[in-house]
């Protein structure tokens, strides 16, 4: 579709962008060598380098697949997610959703794209407007996306409220966010992300602000929705122990790059990258024996994304560094086990 033609496309046709594609197990989202650099300026205009928040990330996500992206704060996982949501423009590389390249979409098509992608925020209270009732919060995306019939809006609202198990519905629709508990607020956020019938949900630490006792409930709810609607889900977290209950594959991100990609069970049983090893070793399970021993933690802190170290970005902290290789040349992605990828010279 050319840029000039898009103004003349009737609204109905725009609303079905992506829906013409074949449903099923094919690739839904394809990220190709994505780089997102933010320019730093000195005194407001002089160039002072780039923050390379995402630097060469590629992966494919199938219809109905759940993946977890694990990494520490500042590793670029939120930037990656915001680019997928269409909030940032890639500096280089492509985000292809259902055959459409995001950077080639016009503003109307972008709006239709956004209705195919739901977003579950980290802090439910911050994500919900305090002056809107649950009813208005859930109706707003439908109004914006042109669901004109009041009856249809009502019907969609009811079915989505039932799906997130906020029943009886009448008890909740008139309430304001501050009247709900943290778990209920997060349910409203999930309901809002579901209301346009998305194909992909991006969940950014959806349970990190919640109490232990409701965390599992919310994760299970998301998992249930994912299965019943054949939704693709990108679950972003720093907590490895919740990922295993949720996703099929895990991507481990370190300093703007994906260092390991594998099936969940495979990654937990046989971690390859030294950084993944460190993450797994540092994650505790409740066990009194933890107090009796010190944990092995790699020294130092993640590198600056303005001037990342040459070669492998983990090499200054890596216990298994190969002198003359890891500190010189950036490791490409190897596949030492079937469908288990890692960017580490140990597996060349």
């Amino acid at each position: 579709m050319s840029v000039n033609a898009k103004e003349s496309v009737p609204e109905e046709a725009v609303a079905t962008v992506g829906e013409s594609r074949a449903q099923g197990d094919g690739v839904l989202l394809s990220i190709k060598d994505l780089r997102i650099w933010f320019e730093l300026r000195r005194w407001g205009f002089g160039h002072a380098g780039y923050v390379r928040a995402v630097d060469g990330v590629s992966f494919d996500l199938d219809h109905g697949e759940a993946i977890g992206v694990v990494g520490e704060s500042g590793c670029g996982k939120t930037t990656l997610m915001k680019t997928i949501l269409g909030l940032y423009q890639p500096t280089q590389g492509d985000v292809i959703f259902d055959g459409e390249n995001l950077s080639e979409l016009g503003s109307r098509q972008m709006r239709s794209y956004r209705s195919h992608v739901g977003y579950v925020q980290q802090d439910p209270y911050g994500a919900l407007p305090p002056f809107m009732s649950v009813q208005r919060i859930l109706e707003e995306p439908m109004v914006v996306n042109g669901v004109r019939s009041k009856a249809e809006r009502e019907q969609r609202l009811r079915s989505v409220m039932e799906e997130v198990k906020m029943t009886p519905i009448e008890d909740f629709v008139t309430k304001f966010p501050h009247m709900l508990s943290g778990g209920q607020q997060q349910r409203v956020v999930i309901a809002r992300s579901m209301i346009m019938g998305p194909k992909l949900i991006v969940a950014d630490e959806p349970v990190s602000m919640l109490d232990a006792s409701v965390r599992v409930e919310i994760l299970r709810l998301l998992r249930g929705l994912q299965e019943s609607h054949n939704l693709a889900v990108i679950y972003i977290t720093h907590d490895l122990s919740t990922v295993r209950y949720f996703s099929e594959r895990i991507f481990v991100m370190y300093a703007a790059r994906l260092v390991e990609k594998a099936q969940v069970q495979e990654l937990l049983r046989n971690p390859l990258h030294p950084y993944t090893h460190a993450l797994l070793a540092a994650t505790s399970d409740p066990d009194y024996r933890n107090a009796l021993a010190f944990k092995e933690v790699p020294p130092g802190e993640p590198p600056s994304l303005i001037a990342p170290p040459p070669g492998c970005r983990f090499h200054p902290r890596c216990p298994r560094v190969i002198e003359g290789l890891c500190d010189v040349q950036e490791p490409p992605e190897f596949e030492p086990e079937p469908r288990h990828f890692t960017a580490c010279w140990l597996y060349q």
Partner: protein
Amino acid sequence: MPEDKLLRIENLLLHFRTTKGAVQAVDGVDLELDYTEAIVILGESGCGKTSLAKAVLRLLPRNVSAYSGQVYLEGSDVMGLDDEEFRRNVRWVQMSLVPQAAMNALNPVLKVGDQVAEPMLVHAGVKKEEALAQAREMFRRVGVPVDFLNRYAFELSGGMRQRVAIAMSLVTAPSLVVLDEPTSALDVLTQANIFNVLKRIKQSLEVSFILITHDIATSSELADRVAVMYAGQIVEVNDARQFFTEPMHPYSRMLMASVPRLRGDQEPEFITGQPPSLLAPPTGCRFADRCPSRFDQCVEDPPVTGQNRRRVKCWLYT
């Protein structure tokens, strides 16, 4: 009275005045702590665990409606002291606090070295050089490079700021440090690092810790004993070894079952329902509404049973 306990809290009460009535945030808490022991206070948000810390350190907001009970620190009754005596002789002398968000706890316009030295100037009355030397020593112990003394808080990473806050709590050599969610905002590797630091300090400096957290998995990194708080009350106190293998109170058991684990194959469970309002908590057991093993007697307030080191507030154990 023989005093082999570092801290003894009896029937501590802290209620807040609100427009809707009194919030009973801490409602009759008994707790004991030995020298060089670490106790973890576990609970969900709103259970009163931070208020308990505030009550112990007497860092009270203005809307307090009731504050009573006994707190004995190294044998002396600190509740009897007036605010000025408490500030002069107890807070940051005998016990100190590592607050929840280290960024907000550090003054943005002071060098961190000066901040860490400040309690020494105020409480020990030493010269500035001596205080800075002590600060340098503390930086070494918590693993912050000593040239960071001249930096400002915004120049440090989250983990380093938290270490500085820990250094500040230790500089006057108190016998008790209260840690309020010290690692909740930090990454996994940084968290593991901080707990390594705390373990080392506990061994080398002979200090006791009260660790307040909602994170059951990481709390096991430091705990000698565990106290579980629910709706303003402590429902179970137990040795870490017993608690993490076989908790007693039904709430503790469900809380433990809700922890997602990296190793092993258990599916985590969740607790249905919500904790009661602290404005008008139920008269009987406060967990009864959500409890799977409730029976007729649970409408009455359960007594606390068991020995000092293992206590549970539940009718199942009477």
